[in-house]
């Protein structure tokens, strides 16, 4: 693990990503403690106060400190996006591995259905699910997880099939190894790498999707300091105070970039041929 981190830090994308994500992680863990002000504190005199000494990133339509809201909101946005990706990846990995392992007709039947489900675009699927589960952060998380599942199933299956075709797996089969050993020791370590890369890049998607659902009023509900919701609420005041829109937008973009960079960095670092 430390070895992987060392190799990750040696790639330029990886180093930048790790630095950015360390900061984001810090915000997620300690955001509320570090925030300079109470994110809920309403101050009518300070409405639309531009960025300055008092409010570093300005104040919003209710005079709440934008920076503090961003710092507290990190937890809502990033942790739920991570959770959604984790759930979607696990479900997808189970389906994909099962499909690759069963092979033949089962594989074909499972994949045909996965393909058919993928005809529903991610956001539409999330909308559908939220519409029946009801609005709210947790339902949005669940919806994103379900929307990610077929894609992850497809990726897992193709990686697993590629590994299965390798001669070292054939050698294990010919040697008479049990199914558990072949799946867990021969295949899994070689499947996990590409899966982690794919999942990392999907976290960036999840962050954006989650913010989008909140923006549409279907995810986090006011007065939560969720970043997408902050953009949605600030839209009406674009003339008076553009910073209330720009600050959360930049936060979303930086988080997504960080996870995209991490995915690219991991792709390089996980390639065993580079460590010679």
């Amino acid at each position: 693990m430390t070895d992987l981190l060392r190799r990750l830090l040696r790639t330029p994308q990886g180093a930048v990503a790790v630095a950015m994500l360390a900061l984001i992680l810090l915000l997620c863990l300690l955001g509320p403690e570090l925030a300079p002000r109470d994110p809920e504190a309403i101050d009518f005199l300070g409405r639309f106060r531009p960025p300055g000494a008092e409010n570093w990133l300005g104040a919003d339509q209710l005079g709440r400190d934008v920076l503090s809201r961003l710092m507290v909101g990190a937890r809502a946005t990033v942790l739920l996006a991570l959770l959604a990706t984790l759930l979607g990846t696990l479900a997808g990995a189970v389906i994909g591995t099962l499909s690759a392992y069963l092979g033949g007709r089962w594989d074909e039947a499972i994949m045909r259905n996965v393909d058919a489900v993928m005809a529903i675009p991610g956001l539409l699927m999330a909308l559908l699910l939220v519409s029946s589960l009801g609005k709210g952060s947790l339902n949005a998380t669940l919806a994103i997880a379900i929307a990610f599942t077929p894609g992850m199933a497809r990726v897992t299956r193709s990686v697993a099939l590629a590994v299965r075709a390798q001669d070292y797996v054939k050698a294990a089969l010919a040697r008479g190894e049990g199914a558990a050993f072949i799946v867990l020791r021969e295949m899994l370590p070689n499947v996990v790498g590409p899966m982690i890369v794919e999942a990392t890049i999907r976290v960036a998607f999840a962050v954006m999707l989650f913010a989008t659902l909140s923006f549409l009023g279907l995810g986090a509900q006011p007065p939560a300091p969720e970043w997408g919701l902050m953009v949605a609420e600030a839209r009406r005041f674009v003339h008076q105070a553009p910073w209330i829109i720009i600050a959360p937008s930049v936060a979303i973009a930086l988080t997504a970039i960080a996870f995209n960079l991490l995915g690219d960095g991991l792709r390089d670092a996980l390639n065993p041929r580079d460590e010679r």
Partner: protein
Amino acid sequence: MSASWLLRRLLLVVYTVLVVSVLVFGITQVLPADAAVTLLGENATPEALAALRLRLGLGDPLWLQYARWLGGALTGDFGLSMRTGQPVGPMMLVALSRSLLLAGLALALMLMVAIPLGLWAALRQGRAADLVTGLVSYLGVSLPEFVIATLVVMLFADRLQWLPATGYVPLTEDVADSLAHLALPVLTVSLIMVAHVSRMVRSETIDVLHSDYIRAARLKGLPGRSILLRHTLRNALLPVITIVALDVGYLLGGIIVVEEIFAIPGIGRQLIVAVTARDLPAIQAGAMIMAVTYALASTLADIAYALLDRRIRYD
């Protein structure tokens, strides 16, 4: 490409539509508590609710409800909107036509920008131009549509006041005004796809430029222009068809957001309205129509690919 391949591909579309219909019906009809309550409100009398349930056939077994709904859906009859009392099928189809205009323009703009940009970056691989394009497209794939839309409005509508911020004018009413209102939505939707597709064009082109047959063409002494136009371009752009087809999924997602922000009464906005109002027939109609559009688009892309790429033999 053989007839049996085509037949199988079309059967697959039918199957996809079936699976999607089961999902859409399942998610919207089975999960929420009671359509009758949704329709009449929490304060309705039990008698009124029972009467409505009978009329809607809610007491019937699920498969019968599904079969009735699917039968209607296949003929374009998705039932009446719980919000407006109008038939949702025709309403959604009209909305779809507006969305397709937006999507078509965005797709065209995207292709016009993304392909030259990707090629240019590939030919300047490793130089400043390539790095700048790379960074900008990285930013592009990391920004959600609503952020780009908001930023675009702030810049072009508020600051520069070049274009209207929201609203929709039918093409039949005033072409210039209609296009002016569509400009920012189209720009928003295409920007994200430009970021994604130009990256793909770049990497495909670089792969082709490093291939044996391009090296062979160089060593045969063919002129650079012929190598680029005849040998590189075609092979690099073929896989882009598949990528663009996959991106239609993002495009549809993007359209939902963009229509909402720019107040375009397309299928995406109708869907959001329906979801917010829990208008089940409208949600079902919107979701089905979108998913079928996507399935058809990707099938068309597959067929186009098969026609253009002579290497793949479908049997």
